[in-house]
């Protein structure tokens, strides 16, 4: 996992220490070690560190992950750390592998922006887009354990009782095609906020999605992650130790996640889903584990939706740069990714 120097965050580190000391009742004994700012990812800023403190019960060491909302990150319009905190709290009593959430603060006076503190779960999260990441997942695929764990984590997610977990605050879709129409509307709004000329192929794609939204209420609604793939799960000892990046969770059709796993968007140069899982193995294990039959025609609809989402994502990213809200050149480069995902949408629409 790539990290950046934390020298520039020295003051922030002191403020994190003071905050945690207060929350943990640790006073001046609390020290932070191995503070790392994670450089991958374009959404919320993320720090990992260990905290050690002494109290009447002895000396304690705990690992923490802190995510801060810089206010200019990707998907800022759709993602809220307060929502992530509530989702993680809800998942604590379920079989879904996810970090435990500890604290959420909305007050920017504390660390300069809202932030979330959660458990530092052991594991690594190689990016599937790089050479090393692809090699990591190829080797894991050959050993055979991680592909099953990756599938099982999705099964745990889609079979968890989200109502009992208190996650219905995310909004429960209505009957018929309401779930699909909601998702299209959500991502369409992101496109409208991007302040870009909209490509006619994207307009065609949105028009097609709105006109062809399938009814998806025959299956029970599930907690849907919204971006379930390698790179968004933490891996420890060949198993998924935590599902990460809870930026776009919704209550809805579980096949929405399944389609993302099946998608060509998430594999490069391999037939393995998400660079990891054999398609037939995934489908049979998922269906057996959830009792949900995978309707590939619905997944085809979601593939078009994901192409539209990708275009919205890249437009939003390059918009952050072009409007001066975020100086990261990686964002500027994404303007040239839009035609690439529009090509996928066009092919799906038959042209």
């Amino acid at each position, binding site marked *: 996992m790539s990290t950046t120097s934390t020298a520039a965050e020295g003051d922030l580190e002191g403020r994190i220490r003071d905050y945690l000391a207060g929350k943990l009742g640790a006073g001046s004994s609390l020290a932070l070690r191995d503070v790392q700012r994670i450089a991958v990812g374009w959404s919320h800023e993320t720090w990992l560190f260990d905290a050690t403190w002494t109290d009447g019960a002895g000396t304690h060491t705990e690992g923490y992950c802190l995510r801060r909302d810089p206010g200019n990150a990707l998907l800022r319009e759709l993602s809220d750390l307060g929502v992530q905190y509530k989702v993680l709290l809800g998942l604590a009593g379920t079989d879904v592998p996810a970090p435990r959430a500890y604290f959420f603060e909305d007050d920017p006076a504390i660390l300069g922006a809202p932030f979330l503190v959660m458990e530092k779960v052991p594991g690594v999260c190689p990016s599937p887009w790089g050479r090393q990441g692809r090699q990591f997942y190829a080797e894991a695929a050959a050993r055979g354990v991680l592909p099953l764990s990756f599938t099982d984590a999705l099964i745990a997610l889609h079979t968890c009782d989200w109502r009992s977990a208190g996650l219905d605050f995310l909004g429960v879709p209505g009957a018929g095609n309401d779930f699909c129409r909601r998702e299209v509307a959500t991502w369409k709004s992101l496109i409208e906020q991007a302040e870009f*000329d909209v490509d*006619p192929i994207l*307009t*065609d794609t949105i028009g097609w999605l709105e006109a062809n939204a399938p009814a998806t209420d025959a299956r029970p609604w599930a907690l849907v992650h919204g971006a379930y793939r390698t790179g968004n799960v933490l891996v420890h000892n060949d198993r998924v130790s935590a599902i990460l990046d809870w930026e776009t969770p919704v209550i809805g059709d579980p096949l929405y996640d399944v389609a993302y796993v099946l998608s060509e968007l998430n594999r490069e140069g391999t037939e393995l889903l998400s660079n990891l899982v054999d398609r037939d193995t995934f489908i049979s294990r998922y269906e057996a584990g959830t009792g949900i039959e995978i309707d590939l025609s619905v997944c085809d609809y979601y593939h078009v939706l994901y192409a539209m989402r990708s275009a919205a994502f890249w437009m939003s990213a390059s918009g952050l740069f072009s409007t001066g809200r975020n100086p990261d050149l990686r964002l*500027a480069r994404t303007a040239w990714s839009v*035609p690439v995902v529009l*090509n996928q949408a066009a092919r799906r629409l038959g*042209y």
Partner: protein
Amino acid sequence: MLSEDELLGRMAQILRRDIGPSVEDGFAKTQAFMAGVILEKLSGQLRHAAVHDRDDRADAARLGTELGGALGPDDGEALRAAVATVARAVEDPDVAVGPALNELVRQLYAERDRLGGERFTALLQRTRRTLRARLDRQLEYSA
């Protein structure tokens, strides 16, 4: 003297080959490489810009002419106006092809019910041929 696209291409090469590898800080190194990638894309876009613009306009004008012939006074005014704008893409340099095509697609969907399924599909399919060709040109430097 180097052309603009050659200059950008040369700068991209230097950023990726010489400057990027010598930067120690991880974030700055990534930014240097990314600057190289962006200049490379820009170089390609600039190199193709004149030919692509000419072809985009010619394709759009053909589309506008064909669709104009398929529409009548009973069809929506906004749709007919969008088609007329696209048809002027060659003669009028002020017509921005992308937004004009986008408005055409938007109006096609808005008029879908009035056009009826068969006509809508035929007009959209013809429009998609133009969009496909335009996208293929963009992919020459984007992909």
